């Protein structure tokens, strides 16, 4: 059984994936391997269904998220985007991070859900711009070093967005 998520989905390893094919193939794989298909099957059949369906879900989650997809593509190149020895960030991005964090803290303190939602939308937009860069860096230029920096930014953006959602949820309770 292949461990390569792109191969599993019948896709070429690239950042820019054909979303419709990706979604369709995921459903085809699940249709063939989901444990629901083997409810009356043997224990051996149930086991392999469980294993394949779990792998397909893991692969789907990884490739669906642009940050994780980029991280995974780099891993296939033997590059760890996030590691203890690889934490450098350009100064301007660090400044921006700090601004976002401050805005998050301010909105949290003011219990301002609308401000949090706006911040979330703004950062998401920033992330979308990075996606376009990654297509260029990973698929065309194969500039893995710059792509690693960009991926790290994207991972960071996802993390801030998750924290904003957590803050909104906290205020909502």
């Amino acid at each position, binding site marked *: 059984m292949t461990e390569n998520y792109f191969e599993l989905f019948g896709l070429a390893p690239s950042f820019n994936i054909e979303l419709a094919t990706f979604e369709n193939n995921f459903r085809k794989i699940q249709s063939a391997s989901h444990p629901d298909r083997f409810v009356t099957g043997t224990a051996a059949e149930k086991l392999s269904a469980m294993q394949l369906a779990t792998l397909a*879900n893991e692969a789907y989650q990884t490739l669906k998220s642009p940050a994780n997809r980029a991280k995974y593509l780099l891993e296939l190149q033997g590059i760890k985007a996030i590691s203890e020895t690889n934490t450098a960030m350009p100064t301007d991005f660090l400044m921006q991070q700090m601004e976002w964090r401050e805005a998050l803290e301010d909105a949290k303190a003011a219990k301002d859900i609308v401000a949090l939602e706006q911040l979330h939308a703004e950062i998401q937009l920033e992330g979308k711009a990075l996606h376009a860069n990654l297509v260029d860096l990973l698929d065309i230029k194969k500039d893995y070093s710059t792509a690693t920096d960009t991926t790290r930014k994207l991972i960071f953006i996802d993390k801030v967005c998750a924290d904003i959602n957590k803050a909104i949820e906290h205020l909502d309770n």
Partner: protein
Amino acid sequence: MALLQISEPGMSAAPHEHKLAVGIDLGTTNSLVATVRSGLSHVLGDEHGHTLLPSVVHYAENGVVVVGTEAQKKQNSDPHNTIVSVKRFMGRGLKDIDTTQLPYHFAEQAGMLQIETRAGIKSPVEVSAEILKVLKARAEEALGGELIGAVITVPAYFDDAQRQATKDAARLAGLNVFRLLNEPTAAAVAYGLDNASEGVYVIYDLGGGTFDVSILQLSKGVFEVLATNGDSALGGDDFDHRIYCWILETAKLSPRNAHDTRLLMSKSREAKEWLTAHAETQISCLMSDGEFVNLTISCEQFTALTANLVQKTLSPIRKAMRDAGLSIENIDGVVMVGGATRMPQIQQVVAEYFKQTPLTNLDPDKVVALGAAIQANVLAGNKSDDELLLLDVIPLSLGLETFGGLAEKVIHRNSTLPVARAQEFTTYKDGQTAMSIHVVQGERELVSDCRSLARFDLRGIPPMVAGAARIRVTFTVDADGLLSVSAREISSNVEAHIAVKPSYGLSEDEITNMLKASFNSAEADKSARMLTEARVSAGAIISAVNAALEADSALINKDQVSAIQDEIKRLAAICTTDDTDAIHAGVETLNHATEEFAAVRMNASVSRALAGKALDEIKL
């Protein structure tokens, strides 16, 4: 009258034969059983044609267990021995429940709460099993045969302990559980297939005791849950309770005995139902001390009394929408499920929130059971060309206790099932051979704010210096949403032994004892039954493996084929003996012998599914 052809159980002749499978909605207030006949899902009725079975169990003085409408009649006269809304107790401890308004005597003990009745101490699992037994009997009577399996619905927001308790109850009732299915997903299946819907749908499911919201993407027979949320302690019962409190307050009643409490709760419930279609209602009843209560409540008063309960359902909706990354414009329809959604104030708030009229064209009491029956029919294999596929999610994150009482998330909520995650641990003392792992479920950061699921003791770690051992613990959540854990020490490849202590569940021993107690037959009957069951399962695996060989023996080499055939012959030979244990062992051996074949077949079928891709091209 035509003669029925009866075959040995499990040895059923024709493959095209319709297999008997049902969907069961085990509800807080009412339970239902449904099945698919001639391609259509039907709810099955009792001998009087009643389809809703009140989820009430009465332990009568003559030792008989009464379930349903007859039991309901006893709730005022014998409240201690008449258990209503038992679903609220499933997988729950005493401290989770507000017991002040409940007429029961609870047994003092840790873990899942227990109720003292005249028939002895009863676990909620046993009480639920009584309801399931009645539904099973109803279905077998109506369908004229033994069921091969059932799909049982649970609230999407049920945690692991509540799900496990439900599955245990089904086992006690003698049901083969095909799948635990989330109630909103079941409703989506019934609704989606009925209306040939495509797009993004929200299922708003307010039952007697639980609230769920699920957001699903419906596309070509695939029902993919994008996010789910809810409140497993909010339901129609709470609306009754608001009226009850209002009566006490308005009539200036002193605290009541169990009988009066029950009576007032029944009156509150009637008032709630009446107010669905009327502007006001009168509540009058005679208390046990002779005091007469006579009050009038209007629709506006009721709406005001319950406004914050209705509002309470909006927070889970917002969470689910955020998790799915959707906004209100993305929603193609909102389907209302559960009897409580008949209340006009609920429909109004939902309509305001989603800016569209909610869909109420299916019977909110039956839609869950109907959907479960459709899924049961597919799982039984009655429709081979069916496109129906349900992809559901885990409702609450799973985590581990780490230093300082913090919960570290291992599997995040709304992950598609089945899902597995591995986590590595190390020892912290030299020569340490055991460690304790505490698994919790919930979104909060502190372990004390999450739900304790189980404690695992890992033993048999080879002694090493502190920090040298690498123990890989794998958490697997299956399609029922149930967790299992395995552990292995990586450097020595030693499988660590796991002792599971469920925090609110029943241990395997307890279940076995309950099952034994439920066989009131003689010892000889019991072993005869076990032998028959062993032979049935052996017959089932032999025919399954034979069918697999017939279809796909080309996928493996001749030696592998004959090795499997030898095991089949060996098992068939053992089946002619009366040795139950040997038959079980033979089944196990045959299973093991076919593991590789099963994996190869699975890969081949995935390759076939990805159209246009040759086998070797995909290299599965």
